[in-house]
């Protein structure tokens, strides 16, 4: 046993204490962190601060004034402030505190500070008598930054009042300068829509506010009613939580498994294996290696799961997580890992180099991908016949069970434990088979074996 632990310890240290591992493990969370800070800035929806002129050919005479009001700097700033307030109202308290502390508090700027940031768009009418082509000519000269004409809007004559027999209103044409920021164009389009609607409503002698209140039905958040009580449905979370748990399970299991495969092949191809076998039995060697890499996978699991829990705590959303799920995550990790690991150990011992392993790995990879294909159907109907059946088929049962456990309607306990029992049995069988292939494969050099050869070894041993 002592020797097995020495093998496990070396395996763990040799894997973890490398630059590659540290980078590989820390990179994903760093990327996510970086993205969550950078992306909102890069994808800021606010139109940039530029100066320019929007010329409007307006045969109806009702548009220019309204568009001018909509595009005035004060109006733009006002809309931004409103958006900010709405976002803030939806942001959880904890995150707001974090955001403010981190200095991302730009959002808290006063209205006049925002005012300094908005585009200055002058709305001018195209003088009567000037042709549309002449108005567009200005768009061909100079640059966006010159502060000249940015766009020309040609309002259709029937945009506001339609003919007696016409079913539809007219609209408008928009001509813009090359390289005009699409967010400026969005502002203009939004302004035109607003101006036209407003003018049409007024032309009909109706009350705009009344129409809006008549047509507004907000989308509500549903409340999930369960035996345990009622709680607000969080659709996104309901989908993401299972995916997160299964993803964690898969990443940690595959990382440990991959390392196991690599180190086994390395030991075999560098011919160190015979030295090792003179000191430990093949079974001790395999057990030690599997345990060592299990610790590696567990480290990853603990780190990522820990970060997830920390994030939930900071969002004050720990309530969505039933802590017993973490227990099952650990348990299913061990079961799923042992199954994958026995496969990896057998393949690693059987082949001579990584390239040969790829051929044998393909079917395993396909099996591993199955849970991802099942994610949606199982999360939608976690207690359907299909989901229940999949929970009892190794090697995917652990992943499927993890999915089902994290949905809003977890499976009955007997199914969970039946699935665990099936896993335990399959792990036992897999380890025994793997041990035989491992023992024979380690000292077999030469032609790369296929599954048939490996089966023969199992019968031989």
């Amino acid at each position: 046993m002592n020797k097995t632990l020495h093998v496990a310890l070396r395996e763990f240290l040799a894997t973890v204490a490398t630059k590659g591992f540290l980078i590989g493990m820390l990179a994903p969370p760093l990327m996510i962190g970086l993205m969550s800070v950078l992306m909102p800035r890069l994808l800021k929806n606010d139109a940039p601060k530029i100066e320019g002129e929007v010329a409007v050919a307006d045969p109806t005479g009702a548009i220019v004034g309204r568009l001018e009001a909509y595009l005035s700097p004060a109006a733009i700033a006002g809309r931004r402030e409103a958006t900010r307030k709405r976002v803030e109202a939806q942001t959880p308290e904890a995150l707001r505190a974090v955001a403010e502390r981190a200095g991302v508090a730009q959002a808290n700027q006063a209205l006049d500070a925002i005012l300094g940031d908005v585009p200055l768009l002058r709305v001018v009418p195209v003088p009567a008598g000037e042709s549309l082509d002449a108005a567009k000519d200005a768009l061909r000269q100079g640059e966006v930054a010159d502060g000249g004409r940015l766009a020309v809007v040609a309002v259709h004559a029937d945009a506001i009042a339609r003919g007696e027999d016409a079913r539809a209103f007219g609209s408008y044409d928009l001509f813009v300068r090359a390289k005009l920021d699409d967010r400026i164009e969005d502002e203009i389009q939004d302004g035109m829509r607003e101006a036209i609607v407003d003018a049409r409503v007024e032309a009909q002698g109706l009350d705009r506010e009344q129409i809006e209140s008549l047509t507004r039905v907000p989308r509500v958040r549903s409340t999930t009613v369960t035996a345990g009580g009622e709680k607000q449905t969080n659709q996104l979370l309901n989908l993401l939580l299972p995916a997160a748990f299964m993803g964690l399970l898969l990443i940690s299991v595959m990382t440990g498994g991959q390392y196991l495969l690599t180190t086994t092949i390395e030991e075999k191809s560098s011919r160190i294996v015979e030295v090792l076998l003179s000191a430990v039995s093949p079974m001790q060697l395999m057990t030690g290696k599997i345990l060592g890499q299990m610790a590696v996978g567990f480290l990853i699991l603990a780190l990522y799961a820990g970060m997830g829990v920390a994030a939930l705590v900071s969002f004050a959303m720990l309530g969505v997580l039933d802590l017993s799920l973490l227990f099952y995550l650990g348990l299913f990790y061990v079961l799923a890992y042992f199954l994958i690991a026995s496969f990896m150990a057998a393949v690693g011992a059987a082949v001579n180099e990584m390239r040969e392993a790829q051929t044998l790995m393909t079917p395993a990879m396909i099996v591993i991908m199955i849970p991802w294909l099942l994610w949606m159907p199982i999360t939608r109907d976690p207690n359907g016949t299909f989901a229940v059946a999949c929970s009892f088929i190794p090697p995917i049962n652990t992943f499927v069970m993890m999915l089902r456990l994290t949905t809003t309607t977890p499976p009955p306990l007997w199914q969970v434990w039946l699935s665990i029992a099936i896993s335990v049995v399959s792990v036992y069988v897999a380890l025994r088979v793997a041990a035989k292939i491992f023992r024979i494969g380690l000292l077999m050099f030469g032609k790369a074996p296929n599954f048939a050869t490996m089966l023969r070894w199992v019968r031989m041993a």
Partner: protein
Amino acid sequence: MADAIVLEKVTRSFGEFVAVRDLDLVIPQGKLYGFIGPNGAGKTTTIRMIMSILFPDRGRIEVLGHASALEAKDRIGYLPEERGVYKKMRVNAFLSYIARLKGHDGANLGRRVSAWLGKVGLADVAGKRCEELSKGMQQKVQFVAAVIHEPELLILDEPFSGLDPVNMRLLRELILEQHRRSATIIFSTHVMSQAEQICDHVVMIHKGSKRLDDTVRDIRARFDPRTILFEPLDPGASLAPIEALPAVRAVAQVAGVSEISVREGADPAQALQAIAAAVPPARLELRRPTLEDVFVQIVEGEEGATTSLRAALRADAVVEAGA
């Protein structure tokens, strides 16, 4: 004294090919045994069976009083023919790891590793990664890994392959030192001269069967010398008078020296006198048979292709010496 290793009627085949056939072998404790034979004779298979890395199809094996080497692993040191190191591991960490796997409890382990590295002239690479070492250096590290736990039984499979003459001599000294510590040592080689230099006792294996199992001295005594080395006093002298002698079977030129084979049944002492009388010699000596000669003589009885066999053995020896 008890026997370190006992093999009784051990047979092992790989498919159709019988690698070892009905091998009987007894190696007493404290002896230095050489396993010799050409490549593919069955040496490594025998050693792997002694180590319980392979298992015999038939027969009984006893190692250090146990039915299997698995029960005595920590008392055995093993340098396999196929040997390697963890490329990324540091030399001292690698040796400590192997020592621990061999049951060392870790007390003073660091000091022992340093002492051994100093002994093989590798003190300054202790902190380097194994992949940074030359092949010869790696081989010395592997030897240290085999002896660091002071085993009672030391099994070395082709320990000299790939070493330069200086390191070959160093390794020979280290093996003899282990012998003086009264460890039982088995080492295999296909280069007979190496076995001749250090072994008390030689076991010769050919085609999976034992052909010879005796002390080096007895072997030499048993195979009486039939080769005379001759250099004429006058380098230009004709050797025709020698070839004409009735006791002489043939004269061959090997590296500037004439090797005169004495006819079967003729007395070598009289042949020496006759040769000296025929052509005045600058050098005239009765060559003692080497293990190679003995080996060739044994195999000669069963096959015709002895020249190629001898050439193969020589070629390997030259490669070994020149490496």
